[in-house]
């Protein structure tokens, strides 16, 4: 992976950032906002510890048997009409993507925010091949237009405030009105205008994925603005670059991840949009789907018995938002696309701890305060990994003399003997008296530049203790130590473990050479070698809530939670004939001022009886431009989730293809009370086996400007839910 060219070691980069008071103010405000939002939605879940335990186990289960899960994923994606490619490193991934874009005859691509493609510097590789890449996530757009670098995983432009963004848009966006204000709503609207044509005309899109389900071959992208849906749905060719650690074993596992990720990441019960797809679906979405599975150092991390925990990361960025070091130093100081605590353990592992000054210093870019571990949804003990990586840095340099090594060796010798220690104490006291009014020399000047040295005491504790009469002195220690010293054996790391490796082509996905190719064979061989005896069948504890409490009225809860995320909810009585529902639909469209509405061809006709305007029936023949000219879309749904206020569309009866509910600016969705389930696990179970799913929670939204939530970006800006009892 790339560490940005010429990045200085962390302490130097941090020093520069600390001097930027605007940056510090932006970061303090933004991280403070998101910390509070996360805390509120996490506190809402009494089963949060159980969800985290399950999240950890799901990722471990995938990782501890990764070759088999990857083989199965590749097999299932291929069976669903996708094409699987394997990339051993960034260069191979970039070559693959460039080749695919060229084969599609495209000169530009639209991109969904993706950490993996930033990691491999895909945009630069595409540019070198004469292909323009347009970032479509608002924050990524801000970064791209400013020729800047991302500084946060979730909110890459967190270091910019609204005024800075307004100035940037005025300078770089031809479509931006000259009187553009710094109001986040206005800025989001300008971005919508800027990207609209690109979405509608794009032939190739590039994405990453949040999860890849081995069992079904489903890919999952979690987003807010609708730019993801645009990219995943409208172009002819979709290329997804996905790290091999993104695989999760089963469909059911999504019920955990779809709760952990939004609450930890944006601090929402559910993000506005989640897209799920398997391969290609005729008449709905891209004609070609390519999955590029990326290693690029991940198998090196997998081989490390402690460091491999970092591969559990689901890129929520909760650790960044609570990190006091990140808050002061900012994301750029971390010198890579992965900033903050997770970056401090991921970057050195993907690169090698001794690869460059950044990787060498990142493990030390922490006070080990543990705030990151406290919020991590998959329980990555980041401080433990940091200390482990520090040992690796030290061990690489054993044999090379340094002032620190000399001091540590001397200290170790001193501490080995109480006599030498007492002598050293006297020297310290003497030195402290001498230097009390001065500044410390050399590497210790960092202390005295801003901090006084404490006045040395007249006596050490042990000197004081010796002055007390009748002091009991414990001397059994000598005897005990002698006994221990005699029993020292050779250092023993991991004991031999029972070998239950399943080897190549195990029970899951039988070795499929067509799917693998040379790249895949090598990646899987690396995985097997990395796992060695660490292969394990991990049990997933599922003690979290699967249903709401018996006394909860799920329909009322759904109405309340959907409204929380700014959906307009109209609740009407069910009257058998559907007259009340039709009246509510007609009224909703009138209130929206919709002169035209598009509906799926199989939408029940009675719902349209009160519609005044033009009704277009989609038989898959309407162009994207035609959809863009329609004022509204009317659909049903497959299931609705009370707890999160979410509607789920599976492209089944009365829902139409995915583009239908995406392109028009207003979406009216009819939800029947019987379709409402209580929880995310119930909804995941109810939609098992679907080829495509769109989870919608409120209108499209962004929090990319100062983490201020703006409703309405690329997806429909209005969502009306007609809830029929």
């Amino acid at each position, binding site marked *: 992976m790339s560490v940005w060219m010429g990045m200085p070691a962390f*302490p130097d980069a941090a020093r520069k950032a600390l001097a930027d008071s605007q940056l510090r103010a932006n970061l303090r405000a933004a991280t403070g906002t998101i910390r509070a939002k996360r805390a509120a939605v996490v506190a809402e879940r009494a089963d949060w510890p159980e969800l985290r335990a399950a999240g950890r186990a799901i990722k471990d289960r995938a990782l501890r048997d990764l070759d088999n899960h990857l083989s199965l994923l590749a097999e299932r994606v291929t069976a669903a009409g996708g094409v699987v490619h394997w990339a051993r490193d960034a260069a191979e991934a970039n070559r693959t993507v460039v080749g695919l874009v060229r084969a599609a005859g495209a000169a530009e691509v639209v991109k969904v925010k993706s950490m993996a493609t930033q990691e491999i510097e895909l945009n630069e590789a595409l540019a070198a091949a004469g292909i323009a890449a347009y970032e479509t996530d608002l924050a990524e757009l801000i970064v791209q237009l400013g020729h800047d670098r991302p500084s946060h995983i979730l909110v890459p432009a967190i270091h910019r405030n609204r005024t800075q963004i307004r100035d940037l848009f005025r300078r770089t966006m031809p479509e931006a009105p000259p009187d553009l204000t710094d109001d986040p709503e206005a800025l989001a609207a300008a971005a919508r205008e800027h990207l609209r044509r690109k979405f509608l005309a794009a032939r190739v899109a590039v994405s990453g994925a949040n999860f890849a389900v081995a069992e079904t071959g489903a890919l999952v992208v979690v987003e807010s603005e609708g730019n993801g849906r645009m990219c995943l749905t409208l172009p002819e060719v979709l290329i997804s670059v996905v790290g091999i650690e993104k695989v999760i074993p089963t469909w059911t596992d999504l019920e955990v991840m779809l709760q952990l990720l939004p609450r930890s990441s944006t601090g929402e019960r559910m993000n506005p949009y989640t897209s799920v797809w398997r391969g290609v679906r005729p008449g709905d979405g891209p004609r070609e789907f390519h999955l590029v599975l990326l290693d690029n150092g991940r198998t090196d991390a997998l081989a490390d018995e402690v460091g491999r925990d970092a591969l559990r990361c689901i890129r929520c960025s909760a650790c960044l938002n609570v990190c006091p*070091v990140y808050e002061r130093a900012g994301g750029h100081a971390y010198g890579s696309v992965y900033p903050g605590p997770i970056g401090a353990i991921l970057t050195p592992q993907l690169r090698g701890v001794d690869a460059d000054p950044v990787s060498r210093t990142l493990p030390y870019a922490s*006070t080990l305060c543990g705030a990151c571990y406290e919020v991590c949804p998959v329980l990555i003990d980041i401080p433990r990994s940091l200390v482990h990586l520090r040992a690796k840095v030290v061990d690489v340099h054993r044999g090379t003399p340094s002032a620190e090594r000399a001091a540590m060796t001397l200290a170790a010798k001193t501490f080995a003997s109480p006599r030498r220690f007492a002598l050293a104490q006297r020297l310290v006291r003497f030195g402290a008296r001498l230097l009390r009014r001065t500044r410390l020399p050399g590497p210790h000047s960092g202390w005295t530049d801003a*901090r006084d040295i404490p006045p040395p005491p007249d006596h050490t504790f042990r000197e004081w203790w010796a002055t007390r009469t009748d002091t009991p*002195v414990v001397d059994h220690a000598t005897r005990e130590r002698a006994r221990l010293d005699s029993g020292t054996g*050779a250092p023993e790391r991991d004991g031999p473990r029972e070998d239950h490796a399943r080897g190549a082509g195990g029970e899951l996905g039988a070795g499929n050479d067509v799917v693998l190719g040379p790249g895949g064979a090598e990646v899987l061989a690396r995985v097997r070698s990395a796992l060695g005896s660490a292969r394990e069948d991990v049990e997933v504890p599922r003690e979290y809530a699967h249903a709401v409490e018996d006394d909860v009225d799920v329909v009322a809860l759904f109405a309340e939670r959907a409204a929380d995320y700014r959906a307009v909810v109209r609740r009407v009585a069910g009257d058998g004939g559907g007259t009340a529902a039709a009246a509510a639909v007609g009224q909703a469209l009138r209130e929206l001022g919709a002169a035209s509405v598009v509906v799926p061809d199989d939408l029940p006709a009675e719902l349209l009886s009160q519609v005044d305007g033009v009704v277009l029936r989609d038989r898959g023949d309407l162009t994207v431009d035609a959809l863009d000219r329609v004022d509204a879309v009317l659909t049903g749904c497959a299931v609705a989730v009370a707890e999160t206020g979410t509607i789920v569309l599976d492209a089944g009866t009365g829902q139409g293809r995915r583009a239908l509910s995406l392109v028009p600016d207003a979406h009216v969705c009819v939800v029947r009370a019987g379709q409402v389930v209580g929880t995310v696990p119930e909804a995941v179970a109810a939609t098992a086996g679907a080829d495509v799913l769109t989870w919608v929670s409120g209108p499209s939204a962004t929090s990319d400007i100062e983490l201020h939530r703006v409703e309405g970006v690329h997806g429909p800006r209005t969502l009306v839910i007609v809830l029929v009892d």
Partner: protein
Amino acid sequence: MRVGLFVTCLIDTLFPGAARGVVRVLERLGHEVVFPLAQTCCGQLHFNTGYQRECVPLARKFAADFAGLDHVVSPSASCVAMVREFHPVVAALGGGDLPRAVTATVPRVREFTEFLVDVLGVTDVGAVFPHRVTYHPTCHGLRLLGLGDRPTALLRSVRGLTLLDLPDAEQCCGFGGTFALKNADTSVAMGADKARAVVATGAEVLVAVDSSCLMHVGGLLSRQRSGVRVMHLAEVLASEEAR
């Protein structure tokens, strides 16, 4: 009760008042304090800086120095965390008899407030300290040991003491061992924010259960001529200062 004192190298050398406070409080409560003279350092400095191999002899020495004591008490949350959380890791590295020795000793090691509240079951230790105090929960005490409200429960029972809430108390002070030197600028920036929060409370004294963090924040408060003193919790609990 016979209680072994694990003083820690830093407190022994630079902040003996904290350890004297532990002795005074425990003796006042009628317990016998023993001080194993062979003790030196738990190895936290080495471990956290990456010198794990150097910790093996120190973990072995610790297990031997404190073997046979039913209760070991320390005024340093971070050193207790090192012993309890990471000596087992070091022991695995060292092998031989070490894991067994560590397993035998480690569970009997407690941080001072844990010992008072959990083992002795007291929160009122008969202290008098008529001052305005604010309390900073140090990270290892807060997150690794989970001290919770034990320290503040003890402080609230001190006669004359006014306990003031510290804003953003759970934010790290920025000490972090060698972090304070390796990333001095960031460390000072964090410490300055902590110092500002302390001063804003109007407290006369900042109290914590880690002398290392107090050395850092205290160094800043002193350089700023803030007039705020730092004290270890044990010193406050030892105080019988007249009203």
